[in-house]
């Protein structure tokens, strides 16, 4: 399963940074389904359109995960902006996800 959400170009001066992430999942396994739902909700709430999320099913593309240094799923890898970060698990701990994505400053 692969889904892409292309980030739109800079729309406002404060939100010009597009966050690029990869989410590695295992088909429709429970934690994977939860992780997808959690990250979608977080992106919608905090990033609006300024993100690009690729969802990679490791059951289909195991070598891709291996090449990206992913050992377990679900795993979320933030690729840009730097620093890169990795969160493992179903992303239910929202604050941990926000910290990893570097979004803490924007949260009220």
């Amino acid at each position, binding site marked *: *399963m*692969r889904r892409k959400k292309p980030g739109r170009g800079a729309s406002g001066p404060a939100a010009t940074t597009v966050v690029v992430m990869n989410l590695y*999942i*295992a*088909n*429709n*396994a*429970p*934690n*994977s389904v939860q992780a997808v739902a959690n990250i979608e909700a977080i992106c919608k709430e905090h990033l609006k359109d300024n993100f690009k999320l690729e969802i990679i099913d*490791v*059951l*289909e593309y*195991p*070598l891709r*995960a*291996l090449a990206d240094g*992913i*050992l*377990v*799923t*679900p795993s979320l890898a933030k690729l840009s902006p730097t620093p890169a970060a*990795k969160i*493992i*698990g*179903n992303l*239910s701990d929202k604050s941990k996800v926000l910290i990893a994505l570097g979004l803490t400053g924007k949260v009220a």
Partner: protein
Amino acid sequence: MNPKLDTPQRPLPQGSARPGFENVVLRLIKGAPERLAIEAGQVDAIIDTASGTAILLPEAQRALIERKTRFRSLVALCSDWHWQQDEHHRFAARESAGAGKPGIDDATIIGKTLWEMPFDNMSEADWQTHRNQLEWRATFNDLELRYVDRAGEVRYISVDGEPIFDEQDEFRGYRGTARDITGRKRTEVLLQGPDRHARSALDALAAQICVLDPAGTVIMANTAWCACAVNSGIGTGVLEGDNFLAVCDGAAGNERTAGGAIAAGIRKVIAGERELFRHEYATDTPGGPVWIVLTVTGYRADSAARAVVSRETIAGRKRAEPLLELDYTVANQAPDASRQISRRISIANSLLAALPDAEYQRLLSGLEPVTLTYGDVLYAPGAPIRHVYFPIDSLVSLLTTVDNRRHALEVGLIGHEGMVGISLALGISVSPVRALVQGTGTAMRMEAAPFCKELLQSMPLQRMLYRYTHALMAQFAQTAACNNFHSVEARLARWLLMTRDRLLSNEFRLTHQLLAEMLGIRRGGVTTAAGALQKRKLISYSRGNIRILDRKSLEAAACRCYRIIKNLQGSKPAWPEAVSGRP
């Protein structure tokens, strides 16, 4: 890439019960965050770096298997069987989703392509389109196929399919599901539309509606029909499963004539001899006589013809109408059957009424009253004239056909003022035109042989018919010129006025298709012209019901041909009128 819904590749054979499994996992996963996540139960799969494959953890594996089972049962719920085809589109497997579900036998399907199977609703071009879809590896949905099962019953299936690819992205064939949609198709056909809410829409209607199968059995009746508490005359209390035709045939007493006429009309509709049948009849209720109009329309479903019967009380409709400028307003205002009947008698045929009494009495022995119903063809071009008709409150259109009868154009319109079959009066026993009944009503009919005999004996009848022939010829000529030179709107207005004069009614039923044929134009032209007249509030038009709202303004909108044709009826005779008109 298509999403794969199969079980994941290489799952662990058994669940966490397997001894040492945790050790294996922990050996594979060396990082602390990964271990913590596994211990927290937040991980579904791990990647085996040695083999380069993903290994599902037992929990996830169980969940996926359960999900697949659930998916299968859902598929079974919404489809009757699933199938798989090889790369040459031949069926390789077919599995019924449940016992007893209808379907095509394995023996007839395995090894065959869809287009090699006996489906009868797809043309070669349709199959080519489908094959192109397959060549493009496109997913296809709702491919509806019709076949006749072993019991000889027509069945429909709907097939969905998607291409399958192997790990190397090589095309491996198609797989999909199929559903038996015979029931749905039947209902659709019954309701004459794909709208699945149509049944509830029918139920919401105030009109009483039922559907008959070819044998006349009621296969569906709407709520109004079933709940019909007041006496609606013939067929009251006939519900789903009852035979409507039998009830009509068996009608006794006052209803016998109406019952016979209705049964005959329905049979004609079912036999496809006529598209529409209308019959008006009166019935006695505790509150007094009530007039009812019964409309029967036909259509073909599968290979069987069916008829839709609707019943409405006209009294209510008439009462609700605003006062119109009707010739028979007085008669129509009160729902009084005796007045209705007297109106019917007073409107006689003008030609017959103009005959001297003696002549009329002699002619009367050969005349019989008949009901002409909308859609009846009295004569076909070139066919012998067996009867002449003197319409009373019916309306007959004379049509000239061209191009092997593909196109027809109206050249004359005959109502109570005239006679149908005038060729016979001129010594020709074959009709040059098609005579089509446009308005249901009664007429006096006479067989050709006695009519010719009477004509030879009766000078007044000859004179009257010659005069009428002149009027009709002039009408033909005027109509021909009018069709060529005048605008569609003016012609439509003329036609509506002529119809009104002949039916003595400001309201009649006409479809766009029929109007287009009458005026020799496309349907779109009728829509525009009728729309324009409606916008000017001269007529109202809805669902084939036309009502003239403002006759005077409509006359102004019509071309002069209307007046010319109307005045023809009163042309001055060349011979002295030796006879006195009947009162």
